[in-house]
């Protein structure tokens, strides 16, 4: 029921913005939750692309964040409703395989975005590269510190694939700078409050912390609050490029954040689905280039996602 109301609201929003056309294709877009600003950017990007191309988007979001059974039952509903295409982020890259099989069996073309599903056939994959994001933001921090200093890592949720890859990236960056010392790698579970508390605790053990690598923006914000509260300074980098992080970069509180391209992922996925339906060529996969957003290049990102407009397909995709 809750999901229905979410969908109803999405339809309402789409019709208010004038996107509905009787002959427009219907694209079902699956994201993981209502709470992470990243997925909000994905949804806005998807709506924006659909509007530009006269199609309609139906949003499917589990009310319980990242709920496997809920996404599974949403797939059952969607398979019955038969949209023209599906844009799909699995809430769990392994556990959703049976769901992907159902969509494939119904012969609905599926674009896989953000997290690569383990099994199933997709017309394309669109995503970023978590390992590269970790490596390049980590490297950026260590270079700025002159290749030395005391570092702490704030990890995301253990066992989640984005966190695993980002951690590999952070740790490989550290290997490139033997004079930098990793003091501690502790989990903040992608949570703002926990990251703040972990940082407060670590500052008790370590009188000198020069750099912090946080696996997402929310944890970096928690760490920055902790540092400010203790009147200490350290350079902080994080990953995702949310609006809050961009503003912190602008204010000089956050050194840099790695762009996870939520809005572009939403744009490109819907565009790819529509191109496929309209018999235009699409590549097998689109891995968005990793960019580190810092004080020198934040300006283009410093816009509310609602006001952003999708980049041109040809600028983003080299055929």
């Amino acid at each position, binding site marked *: 029921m*809750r999901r229905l*109301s*979410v969908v109803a*609201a999405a339809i309402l929003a789409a019709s208010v913005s004038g996107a509905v056309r009787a002959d427009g294709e219907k694209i079902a877009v699956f994201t993981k*939750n*209502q*709470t*992470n*600003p990243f*997925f*909000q950017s994905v*949804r806005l990007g998807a709506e924006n692309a659909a509007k530009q191309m006269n199609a309609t988007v139906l949003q499917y979001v589990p*009310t*319980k*964040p990242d709920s496997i059974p809920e996404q599974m039952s949403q797939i059952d509903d969607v398979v019955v409703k038969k949209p023209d295409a599906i844009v799909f982020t699995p809430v769990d890259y392994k556990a959703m395989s049976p769901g992907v099989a159902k969509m494939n069996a119904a012969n609905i073309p599926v674009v896989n975005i953000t997290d690569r599903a383990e099994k199933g056939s997709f017309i394309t994959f669109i995503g970023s590269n978590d390992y590269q994001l970790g490596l390049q933001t980590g490297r950026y921090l260590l270079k700025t510190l002159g290749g030395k200093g005391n570092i702490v890592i704030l*990890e995301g949720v*253990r066992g989640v694939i984005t966190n695993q890859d980002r951690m590999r990236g952070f740790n490989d960056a550290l290997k490139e700078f033997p004079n930098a010392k990793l*003091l*501690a*790698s*502790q*989990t903040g*579970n992608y*949570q*703002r*409050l*926990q990251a*703040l*508390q*972990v940082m*407060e*605790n*670590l500052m*008790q*053990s370590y009188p000198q912390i020069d750099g912090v690598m946080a696996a997402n923006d*929310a944890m970096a*914000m*928690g760490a920055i*609050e902790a540092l400010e*509260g203790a009147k200490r300074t350290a350079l902080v980098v994080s990953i995702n490029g*949310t*609006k*809050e992080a961009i*503003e912190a970069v602008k204010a000089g509180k956050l050194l840099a954040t790695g762009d996870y391209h939520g809005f572009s992922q939403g744009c490109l996925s819907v565009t790819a689905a529509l191109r496929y339906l309209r018999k235009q060529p699409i590549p097998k996969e689109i891995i968005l280039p990793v960019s580190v957003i810092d004080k020198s290049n934040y300006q283009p990102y410093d816009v509310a996602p609602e006001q952003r407009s999708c980049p041109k397909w040809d600028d983003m995709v080299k055929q």
Partner: protein
Amino acid sequence: MSTLTFPRLTLSAEFRTIAQRLLAVVVLCIVLSVLSGAFLTFGNLVNVLRQAALIFLLASGLTLVILTAGLDLSIGANVGLSACLAGSVIQASGSALLGVAVGLGSGCAIGLGNGLLVTVLRLPPFIATYGMLWVVHGLTYWFMAGATIHGFPPAFRALGSGYWLSLPIPVYLMFVFLAIGIGFARYTTWGQEIYAIGANPIAARLSGIPVNRRLVLVYTVSGAMAGLASLIFLARLNSAEGDIGEPLTLPAIAAVLIGGTSLFGGVGTVSGTLVGALILTLVLNGMNLLAIDANWQPLVTGVIVILAVSLDVLTHRGGSAGR
């Protein structure tokens, strides 16, 4: 007029009970100070108290609910919605006072809703507050649409990150509400009636206690404390998003139960809940100070909580009923 009478403990007896309860905390502190030189410093102890404050404030109202043999699963969702509403109001109006009123008001309203579901509709507390949890989540997600609000005026932020006489403001709030909680539960008729309802609701009703009104009261208080906790969260973190409260629900319930309050009602103390909050906080603090590998942290947390409660149970065996 209530015909039930309860022995009213003297203040020294109250302190004795707290001291007993604190044993597990003291043992944990001794172990940690041996293992880490950083533990027994003023800075770290203040740190622990400040971190415990948030969970205590949330858990103190919940203690009253659990004393009536009830449960409030909606407190985490309540923190999320109240924080988002208060934060938005502060940003829109520029008035910290209005934001505080909205945060507390939203907390109270959700609690009152729970109380009415439990008394008027006679829903089991688990179901009523579980349903409320989803309703509140839904409202929050709709209201926030995946956004984050951040950046509040310094006057408001002092509530969470300010100091007075080198102690953080949330620590004072914790002690104020500890005193109010102890005073209310032990030394007022209403407080005693809450124990009586939890111990035996039928006897309580027969002896003339307005059971429904007291139940509505405890759920509203629990909601109000969630509203207060949401304000502390907001002021501390300087930001909020829809899902901030959910990770707090289970630790708050755990703090109440670790503190010796019975899920079956009638037995427990607000001071015990402080002990529960301290134990949970010390575990995280200790693991961070010792930089224990994140893979092992869940296991270590579980073992320490079980050991701490075992110690508490052993020292209480044969003692007073734990009240």
